């Protein structure tokens, strides 16, 4: 399942997606993110039959993801995003 966390408002669309089929709950994204937007859930509220933990964006961060991720996305010379690099399964993607 591709879980898209984020929102769309007058300024644009901002979604951080996690491919839960690839996610194994390893916690590397939680450690890598300087803004601490990730969390690991023992039960996936979107998939009640999933047996292993899953990464997700905290509910408190979801609706301000544009600002939370802002520091990692400078306008020029943007380095690779720490969360994307940290995830060995390649489960994380950003829409902006």
């Amino acid at each position: 399942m591709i879980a898209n966390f984020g929102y769309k408002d007058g300024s644009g669309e901002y979604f951080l997606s996690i491919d839960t089929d690839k996610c194994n709950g390893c916690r590397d994204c939680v450690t890598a993110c300087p803004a601490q937007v990730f969390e690991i859930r023992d039960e996936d509220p979107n998939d009640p039959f999933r047996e292993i933990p899953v990464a997700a964006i905290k509910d408190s961060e979801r609706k301000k993801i544009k600002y939370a991720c802002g520091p990692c996305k400078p306008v020029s010379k943007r380095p690779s995003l720490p969360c994307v690099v940290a995830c060995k399964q390649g489960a994380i993607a950003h829409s902006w």
Partner: protein
Amino acid sequence: MAEFWRWTESRWTAPDKDWKKAKIITAGVDVGSVSSQAVVMVDGELYCYSNMRTGSDSPNSATNAMNWALEGTGLSLDKIQYTVGTGYGRVNVPFAQRAITEIACHGRGANFIYGPTVRTVLDMGGQDCKAIHIDEKGKVTNFLMNDKCAAGTGRGMEVFADLLGVSINEVGELSLKVEEEPPPVSSTCVVFAKSEASGLLREGWPKEKVIAAYTSAMAHRVVTLLERIGVEPDFAITGGIAKNVGVVTRLEKELHIKALIPKYDTQIAGAVGAALFARALVEKGK
């Protein structure tokens, strides 16, 4: 003073089913930001349901919806083996054994209401909008939700119904009574769209033209959200706005795809999915 935003509440019991003959009785309660539904299923078939306004008190909303659904059936809460709560207020269903998100529940519910060919579900709810991809069993494969703003939601449409003094049950039909489609309102924000609409009314635009302009803008906004994950046939719409023929027609036109015709009230999809999950959880011995 008439309340134009008030849509019709309803309840229903299956005329041909007897809960006393059922092996597994389960329930799903969807406490949404605007509306609440309670659905009871017997052996995976729809037995009864209710659809009413949520009000300001979530735990009472769940109980009120359930009591109304059970009214006249002789069935009581203690005979229901498992209840799943879903929706915005899912943690406030006091008699539920588990809470599952409305995304998973709308996926399952759409699969039940529309059949196993559905792959794309658009849920336009009271205060949010969801695009969901499901497989033939109703399991979610991709989802995207926007709950940051009212444009593209029931709440937005309620604002316009109230502004124009037209009942929410009739705004859809009214929006189609224009000979030529007017340009959509330029603001995507409902607050500004309302100001813009007041201006158009003062300029002499008839009500149907104003509501057509707003509906057109709303449909377009929803389409851009859907296109982020793509629309794969078959396409189905759940939630209250699925009953607005003005929005549905414009969506179908912009997406070049016809939405499936529902067999049941589109607002109960979440609660239906929850009741189905409840049954699966009973069968798994949880």
